[in-house]
């Protein structure tokens, strides 16, 4: 039985309602709340989307495999390193990892082909488009009427791999980070850190941080906490930014111990040794302590930025019925009213449009019919003309024939007359002869 704890009240807003501290007289039980939350989240499982960006050959796939101790890219499903890319692609792979009853749905977004071509202008565009499209999906899902299943595929963290040149950031690095620091949490990493000696590494890190500040790039900032222990840890991490990492999944024997590392003729570079590289810091930070914070910053800062920018620019026309709405500063009822009005006006417009379309179609049909009528008429006339012509022809033939007949008859009569004449003269002659 514990009496209630004394809480320092900071509430001085909220419409002037002051929260007074009260001491409890008995055990109420709401101290059990974190457990309930815990159990619920464990049942629901967690999601995390991680993006890796960098030139090919910097060990991104190996690092992912080492971080989560699984073979995301296995021989059956070879990673981007074994496939040559002509343009920048954005690929995502999902893997479900379980540990201690907790499910984590991990999505790794890879960007093969980044920075590999001769001309790399705008190679960051596919990445920006991908991140924006994920934000848009979430915005649509959030604005839906039915939002029970809301999958969160927003990119919560972007690991940017810097090549270990030892000098400073390349122009490509600076351009990319400048364009993406407002959209996603960027954590810069120095890849293949076993290339450098400790002094070179220190020098390089200092140079990078100087350039990052020069160009005003906002990388992910670790939150300040009240806890002194945590602050110490956070400060330690801050000192070692950007983290220099080495990845490996091969296990080597060193002094009887089995460690993960890279075997060289001159020694073994151990991945989990804090003196060799900052891999353990990265892993602890990313998975063990700051995963939730990364998700929160994505949700509260980057997503809200995107949302306000998007909604300030949206207009009412040409938008689908069930998706984006107008300003959400009004109360829900007013909003629903507006929605309804919207809907009605849209229906009216659709009706009008359909009527117009119908009229047009009718007109067209009428026109067609008239045309065909005219056509038929013409043909009819044509045929009639033909018929008449034939008729006339036939008439002519008949006339001709009659003429012929008449002439032939005339000829016959003449012939007969002649014959008669001839016979008469013959008789006359005969008579004459007799006398």
């Amino acid at each position, binding site marked *: 039985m514990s009496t209630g704890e004394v809480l320092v009240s900071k509430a001085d807003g909220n419409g002037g309602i002051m929260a007074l501290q009260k001491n409890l007289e008995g055990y109420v039980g709401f101290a059990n709340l974190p457990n309930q939350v815990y159990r619920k989240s464990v049942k629901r499982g967690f999601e995390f989307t991680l993006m890796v960006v960098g030139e090919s050959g910097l060990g991104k796939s190996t690092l992912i495999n080492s971080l989560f101790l699984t073979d995301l890219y296995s021989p059956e499903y070879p990673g981007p390193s074994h496939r040559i890319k002509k343009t920048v692609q954005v690929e995502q792979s999902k893997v479900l990892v379980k540990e201690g009853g907790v499910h984590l749905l991990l999505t790794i977004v890879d960007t093969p082909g980044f920075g590999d071509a001769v001309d790399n202008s705008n190679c960051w565009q596919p990445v920006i488009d991908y991140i924006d499209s994920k934000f848009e999906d979430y915005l649509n899902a959030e604005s839906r009427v039915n939002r029970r299943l809301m999958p969160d595929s927003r990119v919560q963290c972007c690991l940017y791999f810097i090549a270990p040149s030892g000098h400073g950031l390349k122009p490509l690095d600076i351009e990319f980070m400048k364009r993406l620091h407002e959209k996603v949490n960027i954590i810069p990493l120095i890849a293949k850190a076993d290339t450098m*000696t400790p002094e070179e590494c220190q020098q390089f890190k200092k*140079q990078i941080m100087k350039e990052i500040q020069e160009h005003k790039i906002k990388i992910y900032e670790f939150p300040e906490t009240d806890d002194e222990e945590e602050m110490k840890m956070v400060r330690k991490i801050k000192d070692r930014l950007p983290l220099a990492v080495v990845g490996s999944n091969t296990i080597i024997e060193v002094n009887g111990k089995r460690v993960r590392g890279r075997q060289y003729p001159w020694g073994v*570079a151990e991945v989990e040794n804090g003196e060799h590289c900052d891999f353990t810091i990265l892993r602890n930070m990313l998975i063990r302590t700051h995963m939730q914070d990364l998700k929160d910053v994505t949700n509260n800062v980057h997503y809200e930025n995107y949302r306000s920018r998007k909604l300030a620019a949206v207009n009412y026309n040409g938008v689908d019925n069930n998706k984006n709405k107008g300003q959400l500063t009004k109360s829900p009822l007013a909003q629903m009213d507006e929605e309804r009005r919207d809907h009605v006006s849209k229906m009216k417009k659709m009706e009008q449009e359909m009527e117009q379309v119908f009229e047009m179609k009718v007109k067209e049909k009428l026109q067609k019919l008239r045309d065909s009528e005219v056509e038929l008429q013409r043909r009819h006339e044509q045929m009639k003309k033909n018929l008449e012509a034939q008729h006339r022809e036939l008439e002519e033939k008949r006339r001709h024939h009659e003429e012929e007949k008449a002439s032939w008859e005339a000829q016959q009569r003449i012939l007969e007359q002649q014959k008669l004449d001839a016979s008469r003269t013959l008789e006359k002659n005969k008579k004459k002869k007799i006398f």
Partner: protein
Amino acid sequence: IRLFRNTQTCFSRTSCTDLFGYVGIEAVLDQMRRKTMKVGLEFNIMVVGQSGLGKSTLVNTLFKSKVSRKSCTPNCEEKISKTVKLHSVSHVIEEKGMKMKLTVIDTPGFGDQINNENCWEPIVKHINEQYEKYLREELHINRKRRIPDSRVHCCIYFLPATGHRLRPIDVEFMKRVGKIVSIVPVIAKADTLTIEERQEFKERIRQDLAANGIRVYPQKEYDDDPEERILNDRIRESIPFAVVGTDKEHQVNGNKVLGRKTKWGIIEVENVAHCEFANLRDLLIRSHLQDLKDVTHNIHYETYRVRRLNESNMNFSELGLSARPLENGTADTSESESHL
């Protein structure tokens, strides 16, 4: 001493004859050596690669002195330049009485921009300019006794140790420049790769080079005799060399060695089990230095000369040369001498 049969000329038949006493012909080797030592040697080497691959460090390590651009310019700020600039630094180094005028041509800004189209053009232009200078000198009526040789004898191209394969910019550069100068590709910062990764990487690079028709030094076609071919074959099997450069010394087993000290061990630069720097140095300096110069003079320079002289056909009368048909790309220099 044997006189070897000369099978190429068809004018005279030479046969092997034995001498029945000591004549002293071999003393010509001594004379040549003394002359070379007096006159000295010129060697021009160009290093090309993205910034941060250790070019200047490697050049310093090769010649064991601070001959690179970085060691010579007092203001050593590592800003990436916006365009490719060529930067030559010359030094005269001496060893055991042998003087060498070494010129290192650096190419800062190569491959560093976001858009690297045509970043090889300043380099190609520079190489051709050197050939042009030499050609002009050669065509003068009154020539100098020793024409200053600023032609690039060797170009070391640095490949980043990604472990995958050649990148488009590497292929483009080596295709274009491999035709006009001897290219020696090396894998930079090779302490990133384990031995298996290194072997696989080299294999893939060799495949890519063959697939793109890129000929790197030593070229197969210019092997004179079987001995040389065997030697060069061995070299060709192990290019590109995986090198590590440094100018710091550390103590290993009581000896002072050049190396890089990391938390997990010391990488000895001259230890062949660790990296192939010693092979590169032997190739460039100890065994093939003269060969590099000869290939540049006899093959690359002659190709350039043929092209130029064919182009400027109208200027032939000015130069006093007649248009002679030239076989297999090699011009007969004695002919041009007689005409001038």
